[in-house]
């Protein structure tokens, strides 16, 4: 029996793979999508339980998911089992690789914060003088962002600020701000901060995923076939042409291996899985940068203040509540000289309460303090950009394999002074802002989570015009192998402070349309 040859093999079904399938199938291209995990059926897979019914009272099985700080006992089964698919790192430099292997991937669970990158990120090299520019600008991606925002129904407030590009937003009524937010906005303005609102994908029925917004249309064309529980082990290449011609994949249950033929391969398995696959296949790395420049964002810095007139259960009408979003305001000008490059955004939330760990007390005294501060808190936290550095990388660890015998990644990422200085600046800036508002600081930390925690890992197949310093060209196409594309976050040159999902989707849309055009012209 001879299996058929597909036009395009897509590896991965999250946002980037779903977008590739959506675009390509609508252009008449036959696609096969391989998914490493099973198809979820939340209606049947989920059951309501009291927390005391769980074997570990909500703590979760100790040691099961040591790198997934987002895990709890209710959701523990949505994450990749680290015993089945391990990875290694130096214990002194932990890396949190947070993974989902289900049809739809991480698009099933993302936070839906939806931002565009600006030219302060696309052309960061010009601003910072280090040449680390993307090969594209906001203008190149603008029409694709607009179409993505329409599909994902992004709610946002237009501001007209170049560092926070507006999009194709649905109308949203944010109501009037509380007095605490207004007070901060006025004080922030004096400090060069601009106050806006969070931008979020509303999707459909509360879900903004590949499985409900992208894949149904692709399936309806009749041009998409999907296989679940298919773990791709290696991309195959033609000995004659050097082009890719398919992939070997292993059935998750039986471990039986098969080979699928395709004219083109599109990798959309997520930054690190796509990179692992390329490294295990030994292809697309003439530049020597495959796996390098791994970076994401710093999360965790937090300052909590308390508004005196809102304590002890008093909540004067209109004083507390609501939120604000402050886009990057640091290092937007060359003359803005600080002890760090790049920037961070600030999220403000009003009307919260204090946590027990904020006080050196217990029992009745602790409870009195918690009651005293309940509802009176205004907090600030950040998403900050980590610089992309060559030395921060992932490579294959040939000594360790996963449950299917596939060698795993060794990840080596260290934070530097830039991250530490940025975090200090952020914590001090928010603290000073709250002090200026007349509020008391009850908790402050400039510490942040290990790399990877943000689940925004990018950069390991970065795009660029120069094949000697980049893996992909500006259309997410391998410099080395013209029928190989990588459309997930690994193509990023710099991550920015923004959630990367809108940019991943826009890049995948753009790359897929380019690919379809090249296939029609028989260039691929």
């Amino acid at each position, binding site marked *: 029996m001879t299996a058929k040859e597909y036009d395009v093999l897509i590896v991965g079904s999250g946002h980037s793979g779903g977008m590739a399938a959506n675009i390509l199938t609508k252009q008449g291209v036959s696609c096969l999508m391989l998914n490493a995990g099973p198809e979820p059926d939340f209606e049947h897979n989920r059951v309501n339980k009291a927390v*005391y019914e769980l074997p570990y*009272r909500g703590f979760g099985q*100790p040691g099961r998911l040591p790198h997934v700080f987002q895990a709890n006992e*209710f959701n523990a089964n949505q994450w990749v089992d680290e015993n089945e698919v391990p990875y290694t790192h130096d214990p002194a430099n932990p890396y949190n690789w947070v993974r989902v292997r289900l049809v739809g991937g991480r698009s099933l669970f993302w936070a839906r914060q939806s931002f565009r990158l600006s030219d302060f990120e696309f052309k960061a090299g010009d601003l910072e003088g280090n040449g680390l520019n993307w090969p594209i600008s906001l203008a190149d991606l603008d029409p694709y962002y607009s179409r993505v925002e329409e599909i994902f129904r992004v709610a946002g407030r237009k501001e007209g600020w170049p560092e926070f590009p507006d999009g194709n937003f649905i109308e949203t009524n944010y109501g009037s701000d509380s007095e605490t937010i207004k007070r901060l906005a006025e004080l922030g303005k004096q400090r060069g901060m601009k106050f806006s609102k969070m931008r979020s994908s509303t999707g459909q029925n509360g879900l903004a995923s590949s499985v409900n917004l992208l894949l149904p249309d692709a399936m309806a064309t009749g041009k998409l076939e999907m296989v679940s529980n298919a773990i791709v082990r290696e991309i195959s290449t033609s000995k004659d042409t050097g082009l890719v011609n398919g992939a070997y994949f292993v059935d998750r249950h039986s471990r039986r291996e098969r080979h699928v033929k395709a004219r083109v391969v599109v990798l959309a398995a997520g930054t690190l899985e796509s990179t692992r696959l390329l490294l295990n296949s030994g292809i697309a790395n003439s530049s020597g940068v495959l796996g390098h420049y791994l970076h994401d964002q710093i999360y965790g810095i937090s300052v909590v203040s308390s508004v005196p007139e809102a304590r002890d259960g008093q909540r004067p009408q209109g004083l507390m509540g609501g939120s604000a979003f402050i886009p990057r305001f640091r290092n937007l000008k060359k003359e803005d000289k600080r002890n760090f490059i790049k920037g961070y955004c600030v999220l403000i939330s009003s009307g919260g309460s204090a946590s*027990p*760990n904020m006080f050196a007390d*217990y*029992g009745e005294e602790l409870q009195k303090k918690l009651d005293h501060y309940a509802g009176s808190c205004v907090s600030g936290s950040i998403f900050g950009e980590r610089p992309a550095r060559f030395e921060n990388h992932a490579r294959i660890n040939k000594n360790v394999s996963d449950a299917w015998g596939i060698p795993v990644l060794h990840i080596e990422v260290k934070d530097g002074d830039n991250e530490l200085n940025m975090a200090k600046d952020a914590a001090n800036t928010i603290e000073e802002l709250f002090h200026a508002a007349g509020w008391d600081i009850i908790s402050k930390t400039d510490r942040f989570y290990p790399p990877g925690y943000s689940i925004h890992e990018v950069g390991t197949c970065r795009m660029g015009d120069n094949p000697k310093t980049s893996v992909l060209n500006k259309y997410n196409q391998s410099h080395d192998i013209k029928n190989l594309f990588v459309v997930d976050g690994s193509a990023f040159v710099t991550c920015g402070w923004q959630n990367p999902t809108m940019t991943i989707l826009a890049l995948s849309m753009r790359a897929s349309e380019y690919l379809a055009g090249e296939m029609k012209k028989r260039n691929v």
Partner: protein
Amino acid sequence: MKRRRFFKALAALPAAPALLSQQPPANPQTPSAQPPGGRGGRGQANIPKFELTPADLAGDPTQRFFTPQQFSALRKLSEVLMPPLRGNPGAVECGAPEFLDFLIGASPAERQKLYRSGLDALNAHAKKQHNKAFAELSSTEADAVLRPLLAPVPWVYDAPKDSTVHFVSEAHRDIRTATQNSREWAEAGANSGRRGGFGGGGAYLNPIDPIYKG
């Protein structure tokens, strides 16, 4: 292949079991389409549902991990840090010490060491200050031991440098969670009309298509 298709077609028919019974017995030399014992009768679909008793209502947990001295200190620590308040049961009433004996016993070695060393340190402090085990201290005496070991921890992943201070902060958090996530806490809340917060529930995600094991 034809034989497999034939049986598949039969199975799809509503009267398949009746038709199957009319077939001649399969040749014992060839594998049966239905492995013996692999498929129950129709009765399995209709077995009655019994009202089952949760294990924690049927039996007391056995204490297995900590030494008796360590466990007595943990019980005292739980009693002091999380006493009954505002109509809610305390940590001891909610079985938090027994639960933590189980949880820490199942935890990675580093966490086990933090707890064992921390409880030993509490006993050592109590011995030095009051010439008693920590479990035997009065509330005032226990407070004198604990007060210097309390510290605000604004970032839970940034552990206090002193290992005993670190232990007390971690144990405090664990004792609170084990208490507020207990059946006793939830029942007390339900009885008092308290809603929300800890002791609640959520949508538990069962394993999705776990790896086939035959």
